[in-house]
């Protein structure tokens, strides 16, 4: 694996290897010197065409903890606003000596385009492309579930037999797509829950179940519910009548949160719309992993950068 473009082409062994590496990386943060020399001398460019707080910061911290140099690039205030193409921007950055490009772009497939056309020598990490994939988010979600389920004995384990519900705006969610492939590869049974307008066409081709009733899903006692953000910036026409109705049918309200099994994890990739897809007290409850997900994101991204960038032969499948 030279690039990390999505989770669809990752097999179980590779995923477990990444999660195990992340497990070791997570120890580093608690040390007196939270820094490893593994990527000394490497330059990582964060190329962000879309807004982001946690992903960009997380990648930056992860790269710095591995002693890499980080260059942050956001499309706003750059030559992109003068009309420079992705190819030219990427080649400019590569000419300045970037070893890896971490890219977020609003177009699905942008990362693959950058990686596979021979435009740049650098390795590409997809940090979200349109409504396609967001692999490191799915990896950190799986990492969070594995840690909560197995505790300190997580190393080497998969998630066979667990049931996870992904709830809400699946249609626009790259997080959902990456999670579907990744969790399925780890042996999880994934159920998509949401209004019919938010369930993508061709769902039959996905290895998942589908439900149009959140309450039934809750009563079937899943091991985790993953709430998705309603992506107002991507929603052009009306997918649901109004936000109150959405919250009533598809939101994780206090009432629904109370009916979940005690061990059921409440997950959200962030940023949250409190009161819309998730109630405030559900988001802050003890079974909520939302802040943990953010912390784990650093370990997982360290693992990805380490496995991609260190070593002569790169990560082998």
């Amino acid at each position, binding site marked *: 694996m030279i690039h990390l473009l999505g989770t669809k082409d990752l097999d179980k062994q590779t995923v477990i*290897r990444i999660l*195990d*590496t992340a*497990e*070791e*990386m997570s*120890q580093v943060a608690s*040390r*007196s*010197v939270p*820094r*490893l*020399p*593994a990527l000394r001398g490497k330059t990582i460019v964060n190329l962000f065409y879309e807004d982001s707080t946690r992903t960009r910061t997380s990648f930056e911290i992860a790269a710095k903890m*591995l002693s890499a140099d980080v260059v942050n690039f956001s499309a706003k205030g750059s030559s992109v606003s003068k009309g420079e193409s992705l190819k030219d921007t990427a080649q400019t950055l590569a000419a300045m000596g970037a070893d890896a490009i971490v890219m977020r772009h609003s177009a699905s497939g942008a990362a693959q385009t950058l990686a596979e056309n021979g435009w740049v020598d650098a390795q590409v990490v997809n940090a979200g492309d349109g409504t396609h994939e967001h692999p490191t988010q799915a990896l950190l979600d799986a990492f969070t579930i594995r840690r909560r389920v197995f505790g300190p004995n997580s*190393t080497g384990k998969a998630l066979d037999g667990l049931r996870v519900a992904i709830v809400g705006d699946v249609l626009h969610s790259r997080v959902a797509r990456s999670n579907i492939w990744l969790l399925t590869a780890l042996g999880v049974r994934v159920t998509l829950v949401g209004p019919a307008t938010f369930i993508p066409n061709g769902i039959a081709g996905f290895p998942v179940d589908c439900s149009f009733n959140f309450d039934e899903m809750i009563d079937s006692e899943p091991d985790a519910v993953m709430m998705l953000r309603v992506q107002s910036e991507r929603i052009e026409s009306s997918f649901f009548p109004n936000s109150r109705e959405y919250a009533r049918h598809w939101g994780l309200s206090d009432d629904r949160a109370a009916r979940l099994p005690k061990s059921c994890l409440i997950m959200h990739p962030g940023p949250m719309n409190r009161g819309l897809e998730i109630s405030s007290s559900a988001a802050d409850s003890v079974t909520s992993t939302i802040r943990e997900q953010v912390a784990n994101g650093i370990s997982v991204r360290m693992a990805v950068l*380490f*496995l*991609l960038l*260190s*070593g*002569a*032969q*790169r*990560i*082998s499948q």
Partner: protein
Amino acid sequence: MTARALLQESDISRALTRIAHEILESNRGTSNLLIIGIHTRGAILAQRLGAILDKIEPGSGVVGSLDITMHRDDLANQPARTPRRTEIPAGGIDDRTVVLVDDVLFSGRTIRAALDALSDIGRPKAVRLAVLVDRGHRELPIRADFVGKNLPTSLAERIQVKVTEIDGVDEVVVEP
């Protein structure tokens, strides 16, 4: 020529017992002693050394393990490897005497990486080095304080320490 065994199970166990006594002698007792093995086989030898120390003076065999993958100087020339668990006993390494344990001492580069890794974790009072086999050919100014067996070798030879936990047998073999 095929691989030949240089140390048998009994030789290894005797060497470890002697090293344990030497450690206690040079440390003048058991106070603040910490045995840290370098993954993979060093960590197993450290466990055994800890068990022997515990038998000699109960409570003296406090054992940890250290992964040095991230600190290697040949990281860029080798395939990426999955790091192993670094386990430091409660209380950390600050102001304690750390005995690093590895199976073979060769170029000294592993030990250099281990010293770097240790300094990221804390500041030990002193660091000592115990190895089962010293095969010479140092590339760095590093020497072992406790040596199980000195085995002069040629650079073309390959020394392999096998332990029951991983290889199913305790022995040291040399492969031409």
